[in-house]
């Protein structure tokens, strides 16, 4: 009797303290990413203050600098949300970079052959959906492991994109009689609101749409269920194949949007313009706290993760030479993976 009393006495405060620390941890897990972004922005804006005034040319918070970073972020911002949903469902798409490159080529080819903006935009987005659906087909119907299936299409889409480009040049651009129309740059460059181009606002709208999709629709819930426990999801009547197929198609559309944004930004259809994007996407999603094994992750956090990565890579250029970039990004990836792991281990109390 006595021991029981002692035990209950000693355990109560422990439970209370663990509840508090649990709250702190879940608060950290949900909001730390915003603090990280804030800290990086503050740090970068405090550098070189001896030479440049705050908010003036040369300082990080100079208006044009911010616009520049957000404008260049449009492709990864478009991609991050859809990629998160796919990873939440436990799958991955390594072909997004090639899909981007192929879309950029298709978009530029349509434009250079005289098609107006909207039809060209719509057709390219549709092509993106088809490319994504093809990935879905390989994974769902042919039952090829996602990593291999999308490695195959990485190679395939890149090959097609390279073949589509005219002989003798490395990218689709004005040459001879073919002239790139004047509107081609507008999507990625021309400021329409707050000095930011349409591509950025499309990224915002896509992200908002995906946030609603994740939190308010059945597809969002099914995606989490599929990633959390595929067998249980299947047994409870979810058509996981369909969920995965649709998610791959959505990723395809987003990759096509990203490809068009980049093509417009660079004013040419470069088949290699998306190379390495799959790494950036994985990095961004991980920094946003998505579990690689599936089941967990938030679209909005990946959006912030993308902003963090772009801020670091572009803000760093004023401090160190460009050849430090790979090292820093690799180190950030490892640090993000390690901290994700530590937080989730604390959370599960082991």
């Amino acid at each position, binding site marked *: 009797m006595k021991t029981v009393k002692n035990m209950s006495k000693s355990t109560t405060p422990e439970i209370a303290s663990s509840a508090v620390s649990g709250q702190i941890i879940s608060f950290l897990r949900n909001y730390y990413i915003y603090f990280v972004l804030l800290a990086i922005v503050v740090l970068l804006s405090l550098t070189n203050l001896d030479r440049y005034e705050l908010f003036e040319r040369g300082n990080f918070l100079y208006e044009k600098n911010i616009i520049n970073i957000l404008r260049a972020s449009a492709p990864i911002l478009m991609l991050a949300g859809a990629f998160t949903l796919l990873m939440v469902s*436990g*799958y*991955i798409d390594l072909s997004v970079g090639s899909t981007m490159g192929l879309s950029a080529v298709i978009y530029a080819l349509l434009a250079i052959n005289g098609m107006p903006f909207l039809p060209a935009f719509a057709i390219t987005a549709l092509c993106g959906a088809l490319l994504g659906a093809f990935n879905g087909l*390989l994974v769902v119907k*042919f*039952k*090829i*492991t*996602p*990593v*291999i299936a999308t*490695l*195959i*299409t990485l*190679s*395939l889409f*890149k*090959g*097609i994109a*390279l*073949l589509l480009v005219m*002989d003798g040049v490395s990218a689709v651009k004005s040459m001879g009689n073919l002239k790139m129309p004047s509107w081609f740059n507008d999507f990625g460059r021309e400021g329409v609101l707050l000095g930011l181009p349409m591509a950025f606002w499309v990224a915002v709208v896509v992200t908002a749409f995906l946030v609603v999709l994740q939190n308010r629709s059945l597809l969002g819930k099914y995606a989490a269920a599929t990633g959390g426990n*595929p067998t249980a999801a299947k047994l409870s009547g979810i058509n996981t194949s369909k969920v995965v197929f649709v998610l791959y198609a959505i990723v395809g559309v987003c990759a096509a949007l990203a490809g068009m944004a980049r093509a417009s930004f660079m004013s040419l259809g470069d088949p290699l313009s998306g190379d390495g994007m799959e*790494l950036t996407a*994985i990095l961004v999603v*991980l920094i946003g706290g998505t579990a*690689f*094994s*599936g089941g967990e992750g938030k679209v909005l956090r990946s959006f912030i993760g993308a902003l963090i990565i772009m801020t670091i890579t572009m803000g760093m250029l004023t401090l160190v*030479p*460009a*050849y*430090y*970039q*790979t*090292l*820093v*990004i*690799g*180190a950030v*990836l*490892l640090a993000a*993976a*390690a901290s*994700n*792991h*530590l937080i989730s281990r604390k959370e599960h109390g082991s």
Partner: protein
Amino acid sequence: MNVPVHIKSIPSNKKHLSDQMYITSLVALVAIGLFLIASLFVPNFFQFQNMLNLVTNNWAVISLGVGVSFLLVSGNFDLSVGGIVALSGVLSVWLAQSIGSPNALASGLGLPYWLALLGAFVGALAIGGLNALFVVKFRIPSIIVTLGTMMVARGIAQVITQGSQRNTNLPEEFGVLGNLKVFGTSMQFPVLFMALLLLLAILIERKMVFGRLTYWIGANPVASKLSGIDNAKHITCLYLFSAGIAGVVGILLSSEYQSGFSNRGLLMEFDALVIALLGGIAIAGGFGSVIGMFFGAIILAVVTSAATGLTLSPDWQYILKALAVFLAIVAQTWALARRNK
């Protein structure tokens, strides 16, 4: 990750070949078949020298494939090998370059040659150790860890070479190792390295406890742990092994070209992974063989060199590569499913 479990071997007296030998011979047959088909269409393809070239031109990727295969069999990825190739090559150059040139890229640390090679090798092992630390200790998925270390390794190489390459002020003996002819034949030392490595790998895989344990760990890590196998130590060894191979490959390549180039070995990690998968190694672990990986490399070599021989635009290579991998994977899954029905 959803990994389909498709290997269920059912013991039966009728079968003389194990599933593994069955798949390996299938891959070998496909490689030979492809070579014969290519010989029909490509002029001058069916020549002894060409067969030899298919192997010798790919010594680097095949060597990397050995380490990657062992790790895949144990259920782990290693995507860092391409980065390590760049890092160890650049390190060996930087450490051996003499001191005191006004040009930053021409001035190194001026260590004796053997010490420079040792330093480069240790640098490679350090990346392997980092892989093991994150995978084994922190239990982070190996694909992420090795993507990160790939970037870190290549990133260090880029910082040392300032994004370019170092190729001046090297000691006389620097270019010897990579261009050495073995015993007066036309075979180069790196090819001999690959051959010995393959023999060693087959010996370890077939005849030694270490190799057999790798299969156990890959097939069922929980069961292997419960039966007293030190998974952590084993996987650490495998990562060091793979990184060590990549280190030697990097040193040999930088010696062959007499330069340390930060973009050397770019995408080699994917090629090594692809040939291992083509060779029938299951991505889920526990199944596959180094011999299969070797024939996987031959398949890829035949496809790409036939494309060049047919004077197709090099852009076709990507599409042919995709087709080859797709067919190989589908054929293997199908053949195993049919056999074990």
